[in-house]
């Protein structure tokens, strides 16, 4: 079980930034003699790398985050709380916060905790940190990976494109034209965060949505891929009540909007959706752990939860 844990923790939280450590993890996992020979050959090829690994402690290496490219400056920042229910597992996702940073030409929608830990790391100065310190700062913000939802959504209003980045033991990115959502305005009004809001309705990717937008903030933007209303969306609710997004904080923006340059796999929305569905519905199936046995001889996969939380925003 320890092996499995190590694998999970490393692969799911840190590995994306530190490809080198994959070697260490692999070393740890493959224990049979046959594999050792293979590793030996593998090591021969990558001997230079391996030697440097042996003498340096991984955690004391300098913190080397992906490069951040500033694309815009945020004008308005909205923090949304997202409540989601998985009707099959019959559980709800603990309330998560997401931030929308919207500027003149770009907007970025991502996890608020991630935004906070990134800001904290930037405040310390990346060059002053080693990996252990960076990891501890990440941990302070209870930074948890939310599977089943994109890591970043960047809306490019110049080119009218939307770029989404997902993570399943690697970054998957796709870009497509901003979808046109045919909103139906109603005369219903409500107050959200003290802003008068008008209710609108739309069918989007297999769900019926109600959105509340405000005239007082003339920015046509919203959470996830939603936009196209004559004001900022402050609340969204799916008709089946499986998703609810509510603004909990609205502020004047002053932060840079940046894009992280990671090694991405280019893909399409359909393939990305399928990849995710596979992973969430059968997480054990995506990892090759056939060489690992439990202490009592059983297959570790039998102890793994068969299905993870899965209820995407878009059903089609």
């Amino acid at each position, binding site marked *: 079980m320890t092996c499995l844990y190590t694998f999970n923790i490393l692969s799911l939280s840190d590995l994306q930034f530190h490809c080198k450590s994959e070697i260490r993890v692999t070393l740890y996992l493959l224990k049979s003699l046959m594999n050792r020979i293979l590793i030996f050959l593998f090591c021969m090829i990558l001997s230079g790398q391996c030697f440097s690994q042996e003498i340096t402690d991984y955690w004391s290496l300098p913190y080397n985050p992906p490069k951040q490219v500033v694309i815009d400056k945020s004008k308005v920042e909205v923090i949304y709380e997202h409540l989601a229910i998985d009707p099959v597992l019959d559980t709800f996702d603990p309330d998560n916060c997401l931030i929308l940073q919207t500027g003149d030409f770009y907007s970025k929608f991502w996890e608020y905790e991630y935004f906070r830990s990134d800001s904290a790391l930037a405040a310390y100065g990346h060059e002053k940190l080693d990996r252990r310190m960076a990891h501890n700062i990440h941990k302070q913000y209870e930074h948890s990976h939310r599977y089943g939802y994109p890591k970043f959504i960047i809306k490019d209003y110049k080119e009218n494109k939307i770029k989404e980045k997902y993570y399943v033991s690697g970054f998957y990115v796709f870009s497509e034209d901003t979808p046109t959502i045919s909103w139906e305005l109603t005369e219903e009004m409500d107050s959200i965060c003290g802003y008068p809001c008008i209710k609108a309705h739309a069918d989007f990717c297999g769900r019926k949505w109600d959105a509340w937008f405000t005239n007082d903030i003339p920015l046509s933007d919203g959470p996830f891929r939603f936009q196209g209303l004559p004001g900022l969306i402050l609340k969204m609710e799916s008709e089946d009540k499986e998703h609810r997004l509510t603004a*909990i904080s609205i502020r004047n923006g002053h932060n840079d909007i940046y894009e992280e340059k990671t090694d991405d796999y280019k893909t399409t929305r359909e393939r990305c959706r399928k990849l995710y569905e596979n992973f969430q519905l059968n997480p054990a199936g995506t990892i090759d752990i056939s060489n690992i046995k439990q202490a009592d001889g059983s297959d570790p996969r039998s102890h793994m939860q068969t299905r993870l939380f899965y209820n995407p925003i878009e059903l089609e």
Partner: protein
Amino acid sequence: MRFLLLFIFLCALQGQVQAQQNVTGKVTDAQGAPLPRAVLKAYSLTSATKIIAYALTDSKGDYELKLPQGTTQANVNCSYMGFESQTVKIAIGTRKDFRLKESNQQLKEVVVKAPSMRSHGDTLTYNVAQFKSGADRTLLDVIKKLPGITVETTGTIRYQNEPINKFYIEDMDMLGGRYNLATNNINPDDIASINVYENHQAQKVLKDFVMSDKAALNIKLKANRKSIPLGNLMLGAGWGDHMNYMAELFSMLIAANRQQITTAKTNDFGKSYALEMTDYLQENAGIKTMVSSAFGTESAGTADVPENRFNDNHSYAFSNNALYRISNDDQLRVNLSYMQQRSHFEQNSQIHYNGMSSLEHREDNHRKGTQHQVGITGQYERNAQSVYLRNQFQLKADLLRNEQQLETNNGNVNQHQRMDSYGLTNTLNLTTRRGNHMFQFYSLVSLSNSPKGFMEAEMEGANPLLQNMKGANFYTREQTSFTRVLNTYWHTGVQMRLEANYDWVKTNLDEYQPQLNAENQVQGYKADLRMAPFLEYKSGNRLEATLTVPVYYKAQRYTDKIEHLTFADNRPYLEANVDVSYKPAAGSSLNIMAGLSQTYGDMKSFIKNPVFLSYRMQQIWGSGKLSEGKMFMISPRYSYRNALLGNFLSISGQYIHGKNNLMTVSDVDASKESSTLVARDNTSNQWTGRLSASKKLMDLGMTLKLDGSSTYLMSNMMRQQMAYQTRNMIYSVRGEIINDYFQNKLHSDLAVTYTGRALKMTTNTLENKQTIENWTGSMRVSYTPTDALEFYANAYMYWTGQEKGAFKRANYLDGGIRWKRKNVEWELALKNLTDSRTYETHTYVGTDAYRYIYHLRPLEGLLSVKFKL
């Protein structure tokens, strides 16, 4: 025909196209640069709110508004973030360009989820900075203000109406149940946040496996307050009836692998340290001999006014608590405590005994009590993912002396009471989990002894009384359980428990009273074997249901050494319990517990001769017949919280229906009050309801709290050979408003409590109904013009009355000034500014009406200086 259809279709299309009349144009800034993503909205002329069409500008700043059919004119609004918006009336089909002026107007910033509270799954975090004010001295002052949390006057901390089950400092349990040692002393400035862990399961092994409906509290220190010694030393001198003193030392060190709290305190300013020394979790119930709690430690009766108003005291307390983290999972804990409390109370009491011939008894009581309490606890705990192991060793000593001079309607009495008790407890707890199997073992061994206890009374015109009582107890509980996970939803298993109790009691009245046969010497054991198979259903985090059907086998054997009688009883019996928890949505939960159970008496049923607890209170604990009963209980509970909006609500109820084969007989005459038990069927019904709601108004920074409770008890008793049905009802409502005004310079806390008590006694021929109403109000106002200075005033009112409008009123006022400079804090506290010297209260105890008059401490002042580390 086809062409005709096509023609018609094209005509129709034509109409549509024509109906879509457009407004086009360009949006630029004052310099003429295009503004992309500007918002254009068209409103109908008749309504200022109905949007009939809207559009956004493209990257060149161009827009095209498509208006619906039939519109000839519309009000078009053009807006862009950071620019002034414009609205103009436009005729359809025209072109309109907008040139917008930049504005400096900033967005109205809102934070609904103020950083004051955050929830993340089952963890709720209160940001202390958002709740703290300059008027708060201790962490408890802040905890009292938190919505969702109630602190009772007895010191118990409740979250959503349920007492908390653990108290952590930085996720380490140093104090066990004596959490007020931390909350009463820690400076709130050192604390960053307070967490509530809902459904807290302390054992990591049982996480996600055995749910708990109780919550734990965790306090987190500010990063720069960790690993350094914190604390304060306070010295004070004052005057009142005589010179007063107060000296208190508190020190604390919270580091990653070590925690320590030391206190040493003394005062004669009315302050009791009992709150800090009480174990509120009572994992193992301490001293258990049958005579150890025969005498009270406090004043007679319960008062609404706090004890520090009438307690003429000398109090000393010392405690040392240390926790060492040996490894990530292993901890070692040692707690030492000593408390000495010398109290002097002056009281008048008057008891009105209800019944066929109502009697009254009066006494003036001068009471000097001394209590010594010593406690030593050592604990090793290993809390790992796969195993939980804990061994706790506890030693306790409790020495009590009371000296009373009483003036009664029957003459003067000198009365002494003494009780010495010692207890030793060892608890071992082991839980292991391997795959789908779980094994639990719990063992508790406790030895208690009360080697010396007596009550001695010298009465005018009567023989003196000397009642001796001694007791010893050995108690052990061994418990083990096996659980098997059937699948994701179903668990099953069995719990086995063996409880064994050996008791020994000896009481005798001294030879001064030879006419009374009043010697008891009874000893014996009770063993109780419980096998409880259970079935548990768990669906995600939402629904959980458990059915337990315990089978018991009880064996008891008691011997009366005086009468050479032996009583033995062996029997099996069955009980049933259902527990269902359901979470309808995030933050809300519903829980229903119901059970059928049997109750059997213990050795007390065979202590048949009277025991004098005071010069006039004579009790016969048993009738020589084992008490037997059946009980049905159901208790639903609903709680809801939304940290986002600051709303907390909890409603709970309980209904208990009981049947017993014994009935209490209370007989009263001019010289004594006796209670005994007779064999007679007795049915009782009890309804209890509790409500607790609180709201934090985020924009105003105001906290509102409302608590209500009611109890209705219907039972039967006998007095003077007459059976009565008695109904007791207590209902109380408390409302509290906490607010800060003028940029947090003025703080106020206003609370009002109403308590009503009703008593009804009925026989076939007679009905007696009485009510007492109490109003209690308190107002605390504190003004902090600068961070260094505080002026405060506390006003209290206590009104009590038996008839509507005829209230006995008592009002008190306290006040003071506090001045801080660097690490030194000076304070002048004035108590009882109105110099009220008496306080009267009325209450019901069972069927009888009690009236107490307390003699209060005078107007007094204390000048103190506090050095902070």
